[in-house]
């Protein structure tokens, strides 16, 4: 873990009991159902979950970027200052200055009609009282930090002239322009090829070291999480179901969903004989959540209490928390103990082979 002395334990971002609901034709979509977390100075927090688990909506709510129809309750404080409920002009002073965000798709984050240097300088000028020349010089310096070759020349390029990896580095440079205290990166490498992904993660690392910012890294990729974060939160159906240090969550998961996720990953360090253990079923609809624990319909160890009562996050040792009535049963469990590795019946296949064939 990052060991900065002095201000190390200062909480830079505190999210408390955040809920987000969207009214829709089918009913109220409960996208986020009470999420709390704290981010300390210099720390990297990973938030992992599948599509629709609410991981992006949580951070959009913090940044004040949700549409007006969204109903948000709870609290999100950056350096003690409440962000929820701020007016547009008030939050604009915080956004980009104290807290910055990096999105998945760099092409839609950048304006196609301005050079990247202009857009970087604009970000600098928005929060600082400097001359245009100084802002441009800072822009070139930022491009250099994120590893763009020939930064002085590249500053005059338009986004469409750059590759996906370069564009994402420009977005990172804009995010760090004002040395924010918090950077939220939402799937920053998902749209990129793997070799470029490694380069962008390195640029992100440099940006963090340069600014000392704490980071929330949101991704569905457990591999990216494993290598780059200090703590992990696992989200399912709008709630945190497990959180803890990265080693806790990866080596001793105490929530069946986390265990299932780890078991369903094909791994580069396992051989072909290693069987994957998929989680049966699909994530629940956020309009009609099942009663009790939202994972219970897919959970292999669910009992009647799981349908009756939704478990709260409780400590299972130190900073490691899990939301499961039966987390004690999971001590030392392997994915294969819980989830059956096969999904089709051998009998069905036989029936298929005997079926009238085309001869």
């Amino acid at each position, binding site marked *: 873990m990052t060991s900065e002395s002095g201000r190390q334990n200062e909480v830079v971002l505190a999210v408390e009991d955040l809920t987000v609901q969207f009214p829709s034709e089918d009913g109220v979509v409960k996208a986020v159902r009470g999420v709390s977390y704290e981010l300390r100075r210099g720390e990297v927090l990973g938030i992992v979950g599948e599509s629709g688990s609410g991981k992006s909506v949580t951070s959009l709510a913090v940044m004040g970027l949700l549409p007006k129809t969204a109903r948000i309750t709870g609290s999100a404080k950056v350096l003690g200052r409440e962000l929820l409920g701020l007016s547009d002009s008030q939050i604009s002073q915080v956004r980009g200055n104290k807290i910055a965000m990096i999105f998945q798709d760099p092409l839609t984050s950048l304006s196609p009609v301005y050079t990247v240097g202009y857009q970087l300088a604009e970000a600098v000028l928005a929060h600082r009282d400097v001359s245009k020349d100084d802002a441009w010089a800072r822009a070139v310096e930022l491009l250099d930090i994120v590893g763009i070759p020939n930064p002085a020349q590249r500053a005059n390029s338009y986004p469409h002239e750059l590759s996906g990896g370069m564009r994402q580095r420009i977005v990172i440079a804009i995010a760090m322009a004002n040395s924010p205290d918090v950077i939220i990166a939402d799937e920053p490498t998902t749209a990129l090829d793997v070799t470029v992904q*490694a380069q962008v993660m390195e640029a992100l690392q440099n940006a963090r070291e340069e600014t000392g910012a704490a980071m929330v890294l949101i991704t569905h990729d457990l*591999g990216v999480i*494993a290598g780059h974060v200090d703590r992990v939160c696992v989200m399912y159906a709008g709630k945190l179901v497990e959180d803890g240090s990265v080693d806790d969550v990866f080596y001793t998961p105490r929530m069946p969903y986390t265990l299932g*996720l780890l078991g369903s990953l*094909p791994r*580069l360090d396992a*051989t072909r004989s290693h069987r994957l253990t998929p989680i049966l079923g699909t994530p629940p609809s956020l309009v009609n959540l099942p009663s009790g624990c939202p994972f219970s319909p897919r959970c292999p160890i669910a009992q009647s209490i799981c349908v009756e009562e939704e478990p709260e996050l409780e400590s299972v040792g130190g900073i490691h928390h899990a939301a499961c009535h039966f987390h004690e049963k999971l001590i030392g469990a392997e994915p294969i103990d819980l989830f059956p590795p096969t*999904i089709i019946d051998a009998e069905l296949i036989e029936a298929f082979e005997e*079926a009238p064939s085309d001869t």
Partner: protein
Amino acid sequence: MTLETETPSTAPATEPVVSAQNLVKHFPVRAKGFLRRKVGDVHAVCGVSLDLKPRRTLGLVGESGCGKSTTARLILGLIPVTSGEVHYGGQNLVELSRADMQPIRRDLQIVFQDPYASLDPRMTVSSLIAEPLQIHGLFGDGGKERVRELLKTVGLNPEHGNRYPHEFSGGQRQRIGVARALALNPKVLLLDEPVSALDVSIRAGVINLLENLQEELGLTYMFVSHDLSVIRHIAHDLAVMYLGKIVEVGTAAQVFAAPSHPYTQALISAIPLPDPKKERARRRVMLTGDVPSPINPPSGCRFRTRCPKFANELSDAERDRCINEIPRLELQNDGHRAACHYAQAVDLLTIDTP
């Protein structure tokens, strides 16, 4: 049925089911004016040779734009080749007419990446799966029953046959795509990024399904993917592609144990491991820059513009060879092939954690 659980260390000397030789595909690039003059070529696939061995999976891996999907389509004749041959069942498919090709299409089927775009939203699932049977005149009496069997085989409820694709989740739709491909009892399935669009927990189910089907039905797969960890899981043989060329090929066990081309090494070390301790202790081969344009690929070795070896280790005299001489797929010590003048095996997956 015998279940093959571990890849043998050497490739068995069996005849390939499908053999592609020196496939070349150039797409013309045209000017914007009225005449649409041809101003160049995209060199999408440049001399690719592949063998699909019976009951085995060939993984074809590479980054976007390397020509892997084009190669799959060339093998099926979905796009015409510029030059090259595809041998199947004693025939060269490239020379066949449309009518002669029709019965062969039964044996060679494809599953596409996007389960949303590859299913007609106005057809029910039953009619989608019956369609290939009807086209080949095989629906007849047992057709309905066959569709139900297919639905069951891919792990879907046959009662749901009268539903429409939008009523299914991504993973279920991909199963429908697999059922369609299986309808004609094919011998070879070309899987073009079949799990890339799916969530992790769903993806594992589809991968297991594909593995089971291969074991039980004796299918031969070509699995096209950008994701080496999926390939590692499913492939017996492996070919790595970069900018239209194969740079390394062998059994999966050989290539993962002793990757010899710098690009393969970079790919392997770029895939994150879901294991914090190993991930921290890993050796990395980092690349710089981006893939060059396939309209004007670099001379000699196409990888040299991004090659860490070329940039950091080689002398000027050695570099000349990379610039001027196209590397061929040379046999390595363990019997697999790599296209690098200075190929050197590196073990990247044995990681000592403290």
